[in-house]
Structures are given as C-alpha cells and as structure tokens.
C-alpha cells in the first residue's frame, strides 16, 4: 500500500479537479495509471481513503511509541506512512501526572484549609456586594 496522495503531492482532501490535474501532470506512467484507477473513481477512492486513514493512524502511533523500524513495518507502507517523531509525551506519564496533581489538590482541600478559605471568600464577596449596593443607594438619593 502506497500513499498516492503523498506521491502526487496532494492533500488527502483534494478535490476531484486537483486530482485530475495532478494525474495529468504526473510523469510516471505506472503511477498515473494507478492514481487514475484508485483516486478518480469515487467507489475505489472511498475504500482507499478508509485504509489510508487507518494506516496514517498506525504510522502516527508507531512514531510516538518508537516503533518506526519494527520488523513488521517495512517496504512501501513504512516508506510512505512513517512520520517523523513528534514531541508528544507519553500518554501514560501524562495520566500519572494528572492523577497525582488531582490527588494533591484534593489532599490540600481536605486539610481544613479548604472550608475556611471558602467561608472567607464568601464573606469578602458579601462585603463587596453590600458596599456597591450602598454606593448605588447614595447616588440615587443625591441625584
């Protein structure tokens, strides 16, 4: 399986017109024939696109898991669907980070400080509200 879009320097959402012009421009007659059969016929293109999507996903997963040179990932597929390693960090580490973060927040909340903080915030909020109300009343009385 090859990535015909990449080989024709198209995006995978290319319109039929773009595909047609790219096919006409293509110098390699074998590739032109393949692209004409696969991409120019809607029915074929749908099937191809589904598999193309899956393979791009697998390529992305392999790049992130460091499996771009696996024993089962060779030939055309590996050539066309291998991505350069991106800077996405390990999902598992991220999950562990997030859980530990949540745990520490929770613990802090539990250690009595939380409820008092809430009460204090409520009191300040009520104070500010009453001051604004008083100022408005004064303004109405004088004006």
């Amino acid at each position: 399986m090859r990535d015909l879009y990449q080989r024709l320097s198209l995006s995978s959402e290319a319109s039929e017109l773009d595909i047609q012009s790219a096919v006409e421009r293509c110098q390699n007659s074998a590739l032109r024939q393949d692209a004409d059969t696969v991409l120019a016929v809607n029915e074929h293109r749908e099937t191809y696109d589904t598999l193309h999507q899956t393979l791009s996903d697998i390529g992305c997963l392999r790049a992130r898991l460091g499996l771009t040179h696996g024993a089962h990932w060779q030939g055309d597929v590996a050539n066309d669907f291998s991505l350069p390693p991106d800077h996405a960090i390990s999902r598992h580490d991220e999950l562990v980070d997030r859980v530990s973060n949540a745990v520490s927040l929770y613990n802090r909340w539990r250690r009595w400080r939380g409820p008092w903080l809430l009460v204090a915030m409520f009191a300040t909020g009520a104070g500010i509200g009453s001051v604004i109300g008083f100022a408005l009343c004064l303004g109405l009385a004088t004006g």
Partner: protein
Amino acid sequence: MSMARFSPFELVLLKSRSQVDTATLLLLAWVLVHRQHVSEGQRRRRLAQVTAQFRHGHELGPVMGIAHSQDLQAIQLAAEILRKECSKERSLSVLHQSITVATDDGELSLANHYILRFLADLLNVTPTTLSTLFYELTGRPMGAPEDPSRHTYWQQHNPDYFRQKARDAAAEQQAREDAERQAQEKAEQREQKKQRKHQEKQRQQEQAHARKEQTRQERERQRQRDDQQRREQAQREQARHERAQSERRQSSHTPPPDRTTRALAVLGLPPGASRGDVRLAYRRMAQLHHPDRFFSESEHQVALASARFQRIKNAYDYLMQTY
C-alpha cells in the same frame, strides 16, 4: 500544569481493577471495529466472549464507543500500558486473542493486517512467531496484505467497472468507425462522378487528336533532325538546372537563422552573443537548473527541472555545432 480534563478512556482506566485488561480490551475492540461484514451486536458479543476471563470489572459499552471514535490518544495510552506491563506469555495470549477476534472464519481485513502487525511489533513478537501463530489459529498462511493503491487490485476486485469501461470504449470506437465509413462512401461517390466526366472529356479529345495526327506525322519527320540538336542542348541545360536545384534543396534544409536567436534566448543571451558568452551562460544555467538540486523536493519538481535542463542543453548543443 495541564488544564485538560480526564478523557473517557482515562476515567475508565482509573476505575478499572486491572489496567492491563482494560488496555487489552480497548485494543481488541479496535481490531473488532476494523472487521468487516459484522454487525454491532455481534461485535459486542464477541468482545464479551473473548474477555470473559478479564478482571477489569467495568462495562464494555464505553470501551467499544471509544474504539469506534478512533481516539488515537486513548489507543496510544492503551498500547503504552500493554507494553509496560505485559509479560512474554501474556503478550502471546493477547496476540492470540486479537487474531481470533480479527478473523474467526472470516477474511482478515486489510486494516487488520496492519493492526495485527502493529500489535506484534508492540509486544516484541517476531514475524515468524506471528505467522506460525496465525497459521495454527486459522489454518491459512498470513501472507502479505493486498495493495488497493494499485491498478491490478481493482482489476481483480471490481471487474465490473473495467468491463463497463471497456464497453464504453468499444462503443466509442464503433461510432468513430461508422462515421469514417460514411465519409469514405461519400468520397467514393464523388470520385465516381468525377471519373465519368473525365472519361467523356477524354473521348472528345481522342477524336480531335485523330484528326490532327495525320497532318502532324508529315511535319514530324522534318522536325526530327532539328529536335535532336535541340535535345542535346536541353540535356546540357537540364544537368545545369538539376545541380542548381540540389544546391537550393540543401540550403532549404538548413533551418532559418531564427532558431539561433531562439537558442540564444533559451540561454538568456541577446542575439549576436559570442561563443564564450554562450559557454559561460550555459554553465550558469546548468548549475541553476540541474535536476539534482531539486532532489529533496517533490518528484514533480525534479521532473520539471530535468525538462528545463534538457531544453537548455539542447540549445547549447545546437549553438556549439553551428555557431
């Protein structure tokens, strides 16, 4: 500090009693989603059946939903967990389960070909082990996946389309031939008319000719002597004429001077440039447009550059020959 919320799969994972089992579950669901000709209910039942021994202790519904949404991050997380916490035996059994789920007496879909290989790479299973396992479980060799990016694949799998195409082409050809035949018939009719007219004319001419013939024969004898002299002179003249003509023909073979200016224009020179200028310009242009310079860009760029380079080289060769 990341502000992102926990994704559905992370929540499932946190609630799970066994993270490895949940991760395996998601990957098996992923394989099942890519199996063709199976209904949703069958998929769920199959998943429940295969994972009866698992200790995850949560519903299968949400996992199936995540697999359907093709959530790459969830699948990546599951793959990481599986790789981290799977023993050698466990990894073989996971592969075993995924092969049964992917095939059970049906065809292995193209997507699953690649997914199974991905899992094998993930679990450090060699190709030979995978193919033996596959053979033992299904009774068929695994083989290389077919390639739907090729013309021949579609010739095999969708012969109707090609038959229709051939029929259309044949009909078009037929129509063209019919048109040609009609045109030919018309031309023939015209030709016949012309011939008839021509014949009549000839007959008239012959009659007139016969009358003249007698008088001419007498004159002929007188003229013969004069003619011989004249013929010799004419031969001499003709020889001279032919020589001149062949010279003219040769001169017509040499192209118009306009081609030189065009070749100079290709090299970016004004008409009347010297030979040294041409050589210099050629070197500069060749460096600028050499196809190897575009090697790192697309194939299309390389093809365009080689066409340009060829044109430049042709112009240079021509100028070097004639200039």
